[in-house]
């Protein structure tokens, strides 16, 4: 039996309403956990004063330099004594889940048991980088809790200037739009950088994320330094049976207004089936016995819209692979930036393909480690040194898919022009 719970009139307000309440959960834990009794006391104080009372510090487990988020309460009385002593230490362990965030109940129960024994009993599924957040342990309990989770096959995630825990969408496990094995790619790449995750020594954080298609369900383009996004380079696959079925249900208005006219590159058109072009790069799907929707695949930018609307009738092509973009990041210090195309297309099927992705990641991290300033993300480094220097640094060729438009300002030295033309011709010859 824990100590008496504090009065929490403001938090109590959050127990009403239809959405599941975290406050009810906190209270349940506080029934027999003193730490949670005082955690609620501090949280209620924050609600009343509109101030936070946690400070960081240094808490870790043997062998690793990161992964624990230390929190010490700063809420003290006039004699420098903790107002809520049982929540004076309230550390979080970041633990990496399996890609796609799949669990058996047996596993979840074991995790809950560990956290009931050693921590507050409060777990977040999941933090914004994809970690399972085991929230609320004393300094003394961090090691035994980690040991048990570690013995169960789970490892610490990243924190600080390190490779961070990664995320992938559900992908191949349950999505028809998946263009590669997202989970395998995540596991291959991240497990190659465990030393850089567990022993923070990079200029700043580095995040990998993996999305199976351009719908980018894990927001890799905005939230990772290296975004691996599935795509294809041949024609959209079509299924006439499902095309007709879709049309029978939705009709011409939706086909024209919601599919054809929403194509951002005007690659779709309505045709009499007998008039559908047979040239290379054209595919089509029947919508009834006489009409089809024609797709000009060389104009298609793989935006996913028509495939999203007519799932099954349309599907990504067969020649699948990934586009890799780099430099996505949040606000500090140059503002938000999206990832930039670095590799427009690479296959990701054979073990050699996965090795190549790993090598790209390795070259990038090596260059980042040596050339980024302290507290500078990859995107900021690209901003500072220019994309061309970055590409040379990681040993990748330029490509016209990397820009929205060529430069519009004339302030550039072009005395290497002839050599660059030679290189461009060589690239073209090599690709042919």
């Amino acid at each position, binding site marked *: 039996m824990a100590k008496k719970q504090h009065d929490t009139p403001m*938090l109590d307000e959050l127990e009403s309403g239809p959405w599941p309440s975290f406050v009810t*959960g906190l209270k349940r834990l506080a029934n027999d956990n003193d730490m949670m009794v005082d955690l609620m006391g501090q949280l209620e104080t924050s609600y009343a004063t509109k101030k936070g009372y*946690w400070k960081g510090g240094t808490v870790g487990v043997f062998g690793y330099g990161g992964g624990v988020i230390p929190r010490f309460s700063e809420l003290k009385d006039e004699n420098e004594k903790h107002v809520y002593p049982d929540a004076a230490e309230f550390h979080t362990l970041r633990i990496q889940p399996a890609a796609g965030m799949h669990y058996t109940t047996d596993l979840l129960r074991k995790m809950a048991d560990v956290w009931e024994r050693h921590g507050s009993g409060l777990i*977040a599924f999941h933090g914004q980088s994809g970690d399972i957040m085991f929230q609320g342990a004393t300094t003394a309990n961090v090691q035994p809790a980690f040991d048990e989770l570690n013995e169960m096959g789970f490892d610490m995630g990243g924190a600080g200037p390190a490779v961070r825990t990664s995320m992938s969408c559900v992908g191949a496990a349950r999505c028809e739009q998946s263009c590669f094995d997202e989970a395998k790619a995540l596991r291959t790449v991240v497990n190659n950088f465990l030393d850089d995750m567990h022993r923070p020594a990079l200029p700043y954080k580095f995040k990998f994320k993996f999305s199976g298609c351009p719908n980018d369900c894990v927001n890799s383009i905005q939230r990772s330094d290296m975004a691996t996004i599935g795509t294809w380079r041949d024609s959209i696959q079509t299924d006439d049976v499902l095309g007709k079925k879709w049309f029978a249900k939705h009709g011409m208005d939706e086909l024209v207004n919601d599919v054809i006219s929403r194509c951002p590159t005007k690659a779709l058109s309505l045709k009499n089936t007998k008039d559908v072009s047979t040239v290379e790069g054209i595919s089509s799907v029947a919508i009834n016995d006489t009409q089809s929707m024609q797709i000009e695949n060389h104009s298609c930018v793989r935006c*996913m*819209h028509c495939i999203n609307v007519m799932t099954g009738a349309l599907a990504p092509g067969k020649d699948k692979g990934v586009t890799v973009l780099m430099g996505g990041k949040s606000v500090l210090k140059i503002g938000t930036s999206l990832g930039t195309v670095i590799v427009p297309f690479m296959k990701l099927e054979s073990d050699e393909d996965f090795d190549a992705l790993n090598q790209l990641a390795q070259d990038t991290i090596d260059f980042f480690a040596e050339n980024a300033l302290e507290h500078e993300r990859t995107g900021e480094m690209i901003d500072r040194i220019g994309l061309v220097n970055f590409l040379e640094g990681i040993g990748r060729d330029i490509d016209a898919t990397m820009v929205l438009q060529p430069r519009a300002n004339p302030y550039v030295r072009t005395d290497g022009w002839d050599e660059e033309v030679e290189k461009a011709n060589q690239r073209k010859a090599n690709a042919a």
Partner: protein
Amino acid sequence: MTEMREPIESGVPDHVQYLHPMMKKNYGSWKYHDRPRPGVLHHVAHNGDEIWTVRAGTQRQMDVYTIRTLCDIADNFADGYVRFTTRSNIEYMVTDESKVAPLIAELGKHGFPIGGTGNSVSMISHTQGFLHCDIPGTDASGVVKALMDELYDEFIHEEMPNRVKLSTSCCEINCGGQADIAIIMQHTKPPKINHDLVANACERPTVVARCPVAAIRPALVNGKPSLEIDESKCMCCGACFPPCPPMQINDPEFSKIAIWVGGKNSNARLRPTFHKLVASGLPNNAPRWPEVGAVVKNILRVYKTDAKPWERMSDWVDRIGWPQFFEKTGLPFTKYHIDDWRGARATLNASTHIRF
């Protein structure tokens, strides 16, 4: 001291061991999906195999009792497998359609809403707030709970023009991420410096270097090494606070909540976009944040009425233009909506493209 135990550097575990058997069997071989009702996905494999997914909202910050309840439901109704989405919804998979309704009923009995699929307002991705963050201007779990109570109907129905993703962040660093509507704490006053503590707590060159507008410089205050801020330059980003907590940026009164609109990461139709500022100055009014809820619900109401099918928030604004967005939502357009940061001119209208 505890005996040293070498960690097993196992990294990311193999996901295959936790996959529902039907997902394992048809890995990479799915053909199409549909949604029989809000909150339920139905995937069909090339070989005709089928799987139904029931998606339920959670409070993300879960106590072990809630987790065990969710596990009980999975054991009794869904073969003992679950997964989580990036927005902290839980998903149960079944291979027999007749099991869907009892599963939904059981989740409902325990208070878990079914929804978050298709054109719904999904669960709000959010940060740690007062519960665990060291630099929060507000709470996150509380704001989200208050807002999801108000948006409950939009979670369990699919009545929006396209999917709507929300996020909440307890400071401008915005760990909550980009969203159709983002709720973000906005600092409005320069940090207050406790000069007695700077010398002991802060590595001064690091703090100086961290400032994006070079507003901070070293100074000697009361005979002690400290820092000073050119307050006319400071744009209150709070970047100096993490490496130097004596530079307090959060303020119970002057840290306000701002609303941002039109972010999306998907490439569908328009390219991925960042959300843009539409409202600020909202009070940090725990425990229900009614002013924030009112603005968010108003934007959602106008979007729901005005947008065409499949238009995400950003597609809709792209079609009608920002002047009409402010007109239709009734939100005031102020000088603070005009960007003056690096590259700002790219956001100005250099054309006669104006809608009257």
